[in-house]
């Protein structure tokens, strides 16, 4: 990572214009999404061949839905990783958010809108705390968020048990505002025989927004710079600390968003859930071409990564295979992506040396 490279990145939309037509193919080949796109296509074709029951609009709708439940969180996790940090609390933070909506509203007998807003505050605060602690202490984000992961996992259970007397929340489907929230976060509509869940639409919209943020705004350049080489970025005036705190809060925001889906779609929340998913979010981002070391990646890649896991998770069942193989698949895809990314990074380094 040379300083000139990083120095150029914060310059808004500077080198973007230099692209000329004959570079088109090379630009395509160097996209972080490429490997995952090819893998996703191959995987889909394989499963469509071996699983006849998957070849229907309603089956593909289920695959898309399952992908979207991974993909929404993967967007925020991907941005954070491009910014150079991890969040291991992302999986349980989703459940924390869902529990908060449910319990605050039910126990205090508040309108669900109020509960939803308060839960958003809690989720953002968790992100803020993660980011602030990281910035202040300089402890690796892996450790900061690992601590948060354990704390939230314990708090989810402890608080739920203390408040409701059980380890799951009450059914909130009869409460004021439920129908509206369900329409926003957990409705569905039919188009061309597809049963599209609204999360799929949100997944796409949020991915496009994240792409725009990353590739078309100054903040996007800051994110790349902060993840590539924080010290150099700081030297040229990038507000690295604020960017990183913002990225952690972004994870909090989408954890709230997906938590809202879980609570409105499934009406009650099991307090012990969510753990393990943080690694799937990270894996989706990595499979999509995001580098673990930061500074490189793409939300569209993360989207494709999430789709790969959705196809694998449901396809294995459609094909009548043993679902235990899903984890083998997850590991294998991750390995492939890592190897591919290693190539990409090696090329990047060579380019700079020469």
């Amino acid at each position: 990572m040379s300083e000139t490279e990083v120095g150029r990145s914060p310059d808004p939309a500077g080198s973007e214009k230099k692209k000329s037509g004959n570079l088109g193919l090379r630009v395509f080949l160097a996209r972080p999404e490429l490997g995952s796109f090819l893998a996703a296509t191959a995987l889909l074709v394989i499963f469509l061949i071996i699983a006849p029951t998957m070849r229907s609009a309603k089956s593909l709708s289920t695959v898309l839905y399952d992908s979207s439940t991974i993909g929404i969180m993967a967007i925020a996790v991907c941005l954070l990783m491009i910014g150079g940090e991890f969040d291991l609390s992302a999986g349980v933070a989703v459940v924390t958010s869902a529990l908060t909506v449910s319990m605050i509203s039910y126990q205090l007998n508040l309108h669900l809108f109020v509960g939803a807003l308060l839960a958003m505050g809690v989720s953002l605060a968790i992100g803020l705390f993660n980011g602030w602690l990281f910035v202040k202490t300089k402890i690796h984000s892996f450790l900061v968020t690992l601590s948060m992961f354990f704390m939230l996992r314990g708090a989810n259970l402890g608080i739920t048990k203390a408040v409701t007397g059980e380890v799951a929340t009450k059914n909130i489907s009869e409460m004021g505002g439920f129908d509206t929230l369900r329409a926003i976060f957990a409705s569905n509509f039919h188009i061309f025989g597809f049963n599209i869940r609204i999360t799929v639409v949100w997944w796409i919209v949020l991915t496009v927004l994240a792409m725009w943020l990353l590739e078309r705004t100054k903040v996007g350049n800051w994110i790349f710079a902060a993840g590539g080489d924080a010290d150099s970025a700081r030297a040229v005036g990038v507000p690295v600390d604020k960017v990183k705190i913002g990225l952690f809060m972004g994870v909090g925001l989408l954890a709230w968003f997906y938590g809202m889906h879980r609570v409105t779609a499934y009406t009650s929340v099991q307090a012990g859930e969510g753990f393990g998913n943080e690694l799937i979010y990270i894996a989706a981002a990595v499979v999509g071409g995001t580098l673990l070391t930061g500074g490189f990646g793409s939300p569209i890649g993360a989207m494709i990564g999430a789709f790969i896991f959705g196809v694998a998770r449901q396809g294995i069942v459609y094909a009548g295979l043993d679902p235990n193989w899903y984890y083998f698949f997850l590991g294998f895809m991750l390995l492939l992506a890592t190897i591919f990314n290693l190539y990409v990074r090696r090329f990047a380094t060579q380019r700079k040396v020469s």
Partner: protein
Amino acid sequence: MIRSIRTLKGGRLRRAAAIAAILPLALAACSSGGAGDEDDNGDGGGEGTSEAGDPDGDLTIAMVTHEAPGDAFWDRIRAGAEAAAEDLGVTLRYSNNREAPEMATLIDNAVDSNVDALAVTLAYPDAVSGAVTRAIDEGIPTVAFNSGDDVWQDMGLEMYFGSSETVAGEAVGDRLNELGAENVVCLIQESGAVQLEARCDGAESTFNGDFEVLYAEGTDLPGLEASLTSKLQSDPSIDYVVTLGAPFAVAAMDSLENADTGANLVTFDLNEEVAKAVQDGEIEFTVDQQPYVQGYLSVLMLYLNVTNGNDLGGGEQVLTGPSFVDSENIDDVIEYTSEGTR
């Protein structure tokens, strides 16, 4: 950063891309081979070739559970279901996820696949009710088993095969009273599991002495063993420990030995080691809900329902437990535990 990579030469990248594209093919071959062996247990149909929706030909019965992968208890449920599928010549499609939303999606998956019949566990009734309703609306005969004894009728299901966790817990409380227990610890191996809480709550409700719940991580048996040992050492007046699953009873036996406070052990569920310990008198008794029967009955009754219009239970739940195994009847049971069917 990203811009510098965009101007790379494409050759080696292309090769890496080719590798990325080809390897999943190899993987798929690998995974279908592995699960193909599994299919042989169920039926000769092979994966993906079954004519779903054709009652004269090969029936496909889907089973969706909240199993956390790799649990001996669930292995018995699955063994029962697979044995029934083999005996009856139907295809069994088993899938599981321990998280409620993902489990609901797996039920959708079964409905999408037009399976002929469906068996589900109802550990998360609110979360899966939508998917179950959809299955019923699509005309797929559906039964519940293992968990959800208080909700299955409300969901419009016709049959339930399982044991009531609360009733089983209460029976344990009664037995502990008979044994003269005074201070009991109930060890829950998975925090946040409703059905496990119900067992301890049931036992507490009928037990007369002191009763306390201890939580530990069932995925970390050495940690669980250590937690229980510390608990016993810190309170030597504890005279009975209740564990809620066979592997945890085995770990608890080490705790009892290490703490050496003279506490006794009772447990839920059976496996080969627990059966041996009951025979040797190290475990006073075990409460078996007969998971093999739950799996077998679910598949059998769905088969009879689809092919012959039968139902079982007369609208009430069909109880597979609690079945007590102690020194008096262990000799009749022990040979089957080593076969993984009881």
